[in-house]
């Protein structure tokens, strides 16, 4: 196949807006992109947002259902901002490089590592941390399931495990054991509480379906 060959069929792409578990909850991003692809040399317009390197910029994060205004540097990770700026210390940091899962949170309903996400990238995204699973002073069903199944020892990995399980059961109401293994495979437990974590995940799924509680 020749290099530089032009591909005529794809020149007229239109976005059909196929769902992508989306980032784009903010306004103003619709139709402009298609036109832009056709004139890739056009000058940038004021729509591009830029944040300076060494100053604090004000951003708005939607965390646990509340809009939080916070001053950040672009280089700060979301885990840093949650813990150090907003005092949401339920989110833990273990490896700080995407290997352990302690920092797991939900972004638009799916689990992600907050240590591998810049806070500025999380603007316009629905963020849920382990604190957000509480109903006032009461534990949410997934948290309750971890307690009932004794699914932790030291507890350091636990909030990340809970968020991974919460993400799993929200998207898959009746997970198989394999689904559970896959769902929490991004979360290491140095204490090795895995068997209890799997049991907690099963219980959490059952609770959500309203059939749990006994046994």
């Amino acid at each position, binding site marked *: 196949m020749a290099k530089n060959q032009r591909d005529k069929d794809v020149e007229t792409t239109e976005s059909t807006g196929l769902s992508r578990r989306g980032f784009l909850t903010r306004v103003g991003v619709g139709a402009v992109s298609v036109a832009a*692809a056709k004139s890739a040399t*056009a000058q940038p317009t004021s729509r591009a947002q830029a*944040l300076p390197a060494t100053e604090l910029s004000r951003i708005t994060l939607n965390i646990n259902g509340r809009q939080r205004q916070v001053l950040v540097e672009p280089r700060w990770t979301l885990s840093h901002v949650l813990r150090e700026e907003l005092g949401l210390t339920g989110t833990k940091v273990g490896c700080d490089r*995407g290997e352990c899962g302690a920092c797991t949170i939900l972004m638009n309903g799916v689990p992600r590592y907050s240590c591998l*996400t810049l806070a*500025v990238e999380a603007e316009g995204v629905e963020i849920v941390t382990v604190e957000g699973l509480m109903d006032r002073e009461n534990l949410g069903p997934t948290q309750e399931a971890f307690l009932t199944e004794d699914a932790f020892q030291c507890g350091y990995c636990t909030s990340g495990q809970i968020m991974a399980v919460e993400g799993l059961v929200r998207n898959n109401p009746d997970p198989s054991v394999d689904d559970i293994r896959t769902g929490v495979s991004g979360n290491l437990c140095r204490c090795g509480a895995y068997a209890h974590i799997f049991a907690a995940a099963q219980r959490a799924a059952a609770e959500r379906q309203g059939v749990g509680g006994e046994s």
Partner: protein
Amino acid sequence: MYISDFRYHRPQTLAEAVALLETSRDGVLLAGGTDLLVDLKQGKRFHEDVISLTRIEELHSIELHGDSLVIGAAVTHNQLIHSPLIRQSCFAISEAAATIGTEQIRNTATVGGNLCTAASCADTAPILIALEARVELIGGRGRRTLALANLFVDHRRTALEKCEILSRIIVPVPPAGTGAAFEKFGLRQAANISVASVAVMVRVVDQRCERASFVMGAVAPTPRISGKAAGLVEGRPVSQVSEGSELLERVARAVADDAAPLDDIRGSAAFRREVTATLARRAFEKALSRAVTGVAEGQAGR
């Protein structure tokens, strides 16, 4: 972990992103960040400008255009896995994406980032090359497309020019009678970096293998195509290359012969070569059965 200062840009169009790359001294694109942020944290790279792709809408869609599947560069691995369009027309792409990282990584990392990092072990590359994908690159001088195989220049080096963006991946929808599969071997089940991987595409017409493609990952600086193996298969009746046949054994060895593996912490070169032969056999058997039956197990998905 410390990340050094950078300016952060959030363009909404490709044109803005290209212009930002052109005006910045050392601007870098940020997609999912699962490679870039790790490098920044480890102090392996520094950039004055980080240009986010998250708000460029067209990079996030998966569409069918005529007989091509068009995948935006910022589509995540989990989108590849769950897309009904991809599962129906090119199931093996979903299959490959499902082997990557962990749930959190698959919700974050993108196919464009995977290709542009150009690690030899990138798991989306072999299957996309086997399916004869092309990539569209957009830069200051306009757009060009090239065969995905030609994007890879060396381990972590691509043919992208300084101010170019990979905008989308164009995969011809395989005609009926085509089967494809991806097999990888790593040292564990999750967050499992490939020690070796093989993607196979085979097209069967009238019980004959009309066309075949074998592409290896992690056993050379770039994804590697085995021309020898394809040559052995093309033109042969299906019966000659079926499971357990002597010819299939020769095909698997041919793939392994075309590998150029290295010794490293994940395995010796000799081990990688052996594993490659086994993966090639398995992937071919699976692809052939899919070509013949028209069904890929697990295709229905959730």
